[in-house]
């Protein structure tokens, strides 16, 4: 009897050791997204911010590069967060919103429409950057299943070691430095601060569209997103962030405008508002018109904050002690980083 117990105990201990070792190895091998492809950190960082948000931005790089929650707070007292990551597709956006609604209910959801042009899964690498950081639950399961590319499998999301095991040969210092440590957030409430100025030199000719309309799949996900907002009493705002490239076709614009009209939503194509906002693609872009730098993002946030306040009667939350404290810390970190990067340029 004693021998059997010892045997079972030994086997259990060996299993615990193996699982412990595999857990540690998985942590080591998973990309940390600290120095390169930092966008990969954005999804997970959302859970570190415990303050409530009146405005939640949803979308791809055009939200995490172009809107500054720090400006929105300091100018209008609007607490906000950006749930965006690189090439975040429409189904990702839907499930990330559903995931956010588990813990908070914003008053306004700002939805960037660029990703509507993709009706099919695009890239495994971007899928991983968007989804690996998401907390487990119905939303994450749905997001994974909705958009796996060929060759991806669900198990590798459950056990990321199955996906990232081959990184053993490319481990770098950041992998060890952030093995068990989260480190400082790379974003400012989901905003990735960039100070480089790379002016837009020319407007590239857009390729001819095979199908002038946005894919039906995308529109169906947008429909679901609108329904989810309605169900939760949230005002949904559709935006097209200002950019020169990728080209935003008038046909797509018409599709979104029609959708907005049919659902009684505000849709604003900010490309057409460049002058009103004050965006200058010679000074306000960090990559020749694809994304805004911090100067452009601050201009855009100032303009958009004013619009939001007027249209949705958002309260000025400055004076709330907890929020004041949180945003003071955030602003300090933001200004320090802005200065550091500006000097670095």
């Amino acid at each position, binding site marked *: 009897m004693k021998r059997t117990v010892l*045997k079972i105990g030994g*086997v259990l201990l060996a*299993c615990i050791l193996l699982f412990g070792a595999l857990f540690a190895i998985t942590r080591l091998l998973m990309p940390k997204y600290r120095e390169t492809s930092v966008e990969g950190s954005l999804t997970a960082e959302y859970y570190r911010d415990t303050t409530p948000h009146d405005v939640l931005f949803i979308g791809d790089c055009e939200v995490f590069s172009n809107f500054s929650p720090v400006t929105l707070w300091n100018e209008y007292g609007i607490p906000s967060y950006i749930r965006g990551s690189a090439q975040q597709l429409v189904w990702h956006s839907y499930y990330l919103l559903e995931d956010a609604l588990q813990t908070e209910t914003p008053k306004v959801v700002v939805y960037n429409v660029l990703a509507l042009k993709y009706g099919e899964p695009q890239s495994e690498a971007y899928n991983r950057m968007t989804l690996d950081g998401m907390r487990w639950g119905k939303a994450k399961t749905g997001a994974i299943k909705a958009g796996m590319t060929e060759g991806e*499998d669900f*198990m590798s999301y459950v056990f990321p*070691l199955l996906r990232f*095991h081959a990184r053993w040969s490319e481990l770098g210092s950041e992998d060890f430095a952030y093995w068990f440590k989260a480190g400082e957030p790379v974003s400012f409430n989901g905003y990735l601060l960039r100070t480089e100025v790379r002016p837009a030199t020319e407007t590239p000719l857009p390729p001819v569209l095979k199908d002038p309309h946005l894919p039906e799949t995308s529109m169906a996900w947008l429909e679901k997103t609108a329904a989810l907002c309605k169900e939760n009493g949230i005002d949904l705002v559709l935006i097209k962030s200002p950019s020169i490239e990728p080209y935003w076709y008038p046909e797509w614009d018409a599709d979104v405008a029609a959708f907005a009209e049919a659902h009684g939503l505000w849709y604003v194509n900010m490309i057409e508002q460049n002058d009103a906002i004050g965006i200058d693609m010679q000074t306000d872009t960090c990559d020749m018109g694809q994304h805004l730098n911090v100067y452009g993002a601050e201009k855009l946030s100032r303009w958009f904050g004013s619009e939001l306040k007027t249209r949705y009667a958002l309260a000025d939350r400055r004076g709330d002690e907890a929020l004041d404290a949180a945003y003071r810390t955030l602003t300090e970190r933001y200004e320090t980083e802005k200065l550091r990067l500006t000097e670095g340029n």
Partner: protein
Amino acid sequence: MLFTSWAFLLFLAVLVPLYYLVPKRVQWIVLLLADAVFVGFAGVRGAVYMVVTIVTVYAAARGFDALFRRQRETVAAMKATHTKEERKKARLGFEKKRRAVLILCLCVNVGILFVLKYGAAIGRLSAAWLHTPAFGADLTLTMGISFYTFSSIGYLLDVYRETIPAEKNPFRLALFVSFFPLLVQGPISRFDLLGRQLNAPHSFSGERFLSGALRIAWGYWKKLIVADRLLVAVKALCARPAVYRGDFVFVEMLLYAACLYADFTGGIDITIGIGEWFGVTVEENFFRPYFSKSISEYWRRWHITLGEWFKRYVYYPLSVSKPMRTLSQKSRRLGVGVSRRLPVYLATLLVWALTGAWHGSNWTFLVWGVLNGVVILLSEEMKPLYARFHARFPGLTNGACYRGFTVIRTILLLSSLRLLDCYATVKEAFSAFFSMFTTWNWGAVFRGGIQSLGLSWADYGAAFAGVLCMFALSMAQRKGPIRKRILSHGTVCSVCVLLLLIGTILVFGRYGFGFDAGQFIYNRF
């Protein structure tokens, strides 16, 4: 359903507990249903061919049984009333009928295999030479057909020779023919060794389960850490025969030797381990083949069951067949040595040509097979010369160095022959082989060339470490089976080894997104 797929692991995870949970008398039915699922996953076409094999082989074997019984009854009844000559005539009549049934059944089964294996190639040749419209392009081998057809034919011939009785239950025969672990890449099994075990009831044994798990894990280890890694470089080298010449070919030979060994033995390890999980001992297919001191020894230790099959069902019957005996008699005037050798050598060459042809429809396989036979016969002919040499230099040939030399010589020789397996045409293979002696680019491989093959230095390092582990294990196995020694250290030690294997596979294996942890090399034969 690939061995390396999640679906297969899930399939096993459901099947093994189910097998031991059901009453023992229906265990074989569970296995048969599992076979049906496994075969079904591979496609309906394959299932149909398999059913044809099962039905025809069952019917023929039962036919033999009936004819034997009737023969015995008839001859016994004739004993008092008929002469010896008449009884012999009656016996011959039954023999004729049995032979007719055998030939018919062989025609059907070998015919299916032949058409699927060579149909496309014949279609291409016909189009090229006779300018007929191309045909047979859609004829492809179905899963395991080369293996189960040979196993079935073995069973049929054993019943024909009255070595074993015919199985009365067609479903029990179906279980032998379709046993799923053997469908991927063999081994080619015998009914008297495997069939009875499959149909017998089995109780769960923790130790046997652990032993099987160790074997399975070691198989995956070899496949995913070594074979699939090296295969990337081998494929890259074979794909550009005009570019990769000289020392690249030498490296390719060695990489392919390691890759094929890890792939084939890895798959067989998984098969044998799965067999153990169901209480079945599957025949070993390898016996440390790379320690062979000659090609003929190598072939007694590599793909043992295929060699045994050809020996048992082709070579021996052919050597003592009437035409061979006649040939031997007629060649007596050329000398006793010639008359003794001729049938043996002819049978050897024919068996090797068939072995080559079994591997595929490409000419490279046929040439590879015949060359193997030629090398074996040459070695046989040169034995007296070697004996004289050994007698002259006993000190030189007795040491470990000489043994090492013979082992390396064998590896290089068989690796050279295997170049025919790597290239698309015989010409390319020979050209690559001779380039080792004509293209003097020694060192080009290590001056960056090797990194252009799709693997990083880290990958080569992992593969090399894997090969070293396999070598060390083979060395250790000379003192007895490793698993037995591990298991003798107790459950905890065995579980630790198992977990270590699983852990290293999970980290260093080539699987998952971006990798092609594909089918086993021998599955395409």
